[in-house]
């Protein structure tokens, strides 16, 4: 068993276990912290796949900003635990069955494919996935989407302020 495979299996184990813990923990704060750990494990996988810049963006934006926003809203609303009691008793078994079918089909489909090694495509250069390379692409062939993203973020910011404004106070 090569060192790469051991690394991958360890990270995959962490990712799957934290995702399941997020799904199963009763407390929403615990769910959010497990999800942050999941994002960190995936970021390390990105690093191993020569995507250094995206891995760092994943850590700062996903594991940092987005998870802080989640935790902030959970604590603001005091919504750690939803009410007990279930209105649809058959919902969980049906969902688990559908999930098992989905994951079974995915694994079967990928298992029948001929395995392609990541390195079989040839080793990539040192600069593959570096901030300089990504930046060059962003301002070269992706200039319009890049500018549109800034508009999207501005619209999201205005929308968030508008939605969370207290209407009674405004009137």
């Amino acid at each position: 068993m090569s060192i790469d495979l051991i690394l991958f299996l360890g990270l995959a184990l962490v990712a799957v276990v934290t995702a399941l813990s997020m799904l199963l923990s009763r407390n929403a704060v615990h769910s959010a912290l497990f999800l942050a750990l999941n994002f960190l494990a995936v970021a390390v996988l990105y690093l191993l796949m020569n995507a250094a810049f995206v891995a760092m963006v994943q850590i700062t934006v996903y594991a940092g900003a987005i998870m802080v926003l989640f935790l902030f809203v959970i604590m603001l609303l005091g919504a750690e635990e939803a009410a007990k009691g279930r209105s649809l008793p058959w919902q969980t078994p049906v969902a688990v069955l559908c999930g098992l079918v989905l994951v079974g089909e995915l694994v079967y489909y990928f298992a029948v494919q001929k395995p392609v090694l990541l390195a079989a495509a040839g080793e990539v250069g040192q600069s593959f996935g570096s901030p300089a390379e990504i930046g060059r692409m962003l301002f070269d062939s992706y200039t319009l989407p890049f500018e549109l993203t800034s508009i999207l973020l501005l619209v999201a910011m205005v929308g968030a302020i508008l939605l969370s404004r207290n209407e009674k106070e405004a009137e």
Partner: protein
Amino acid sequence: MNIPVNYLLVLAGILFTIGVLGVLIRRNAIVVFMSIELMLNAANMVFITFARAFQNLDGQVIVFFLIAAAAAEVAIGLALMVTIFRTKKSIDIDEVKTLSG
């Protein structure tokens, strides 16, 4: 990293399925929202995998845009949740069954 592409795709598939299960099973709207983020993350992982397999940086640039879109989505979604909580006093998704406040 020298492992088959299939392993990474299977991992992404498993994470995506866990996200789907979270959306279907959980009733806390914030946990449902976190499950959606998990699914987005699984899709990002497939992009990164194929960017490496085909030695093409476009996949990584698209993931950058996807992360920016996810950030915008989270900001709006959580603001909506705060607004719903203000009128319903609950974020149980079973409670949210009428369009009018």
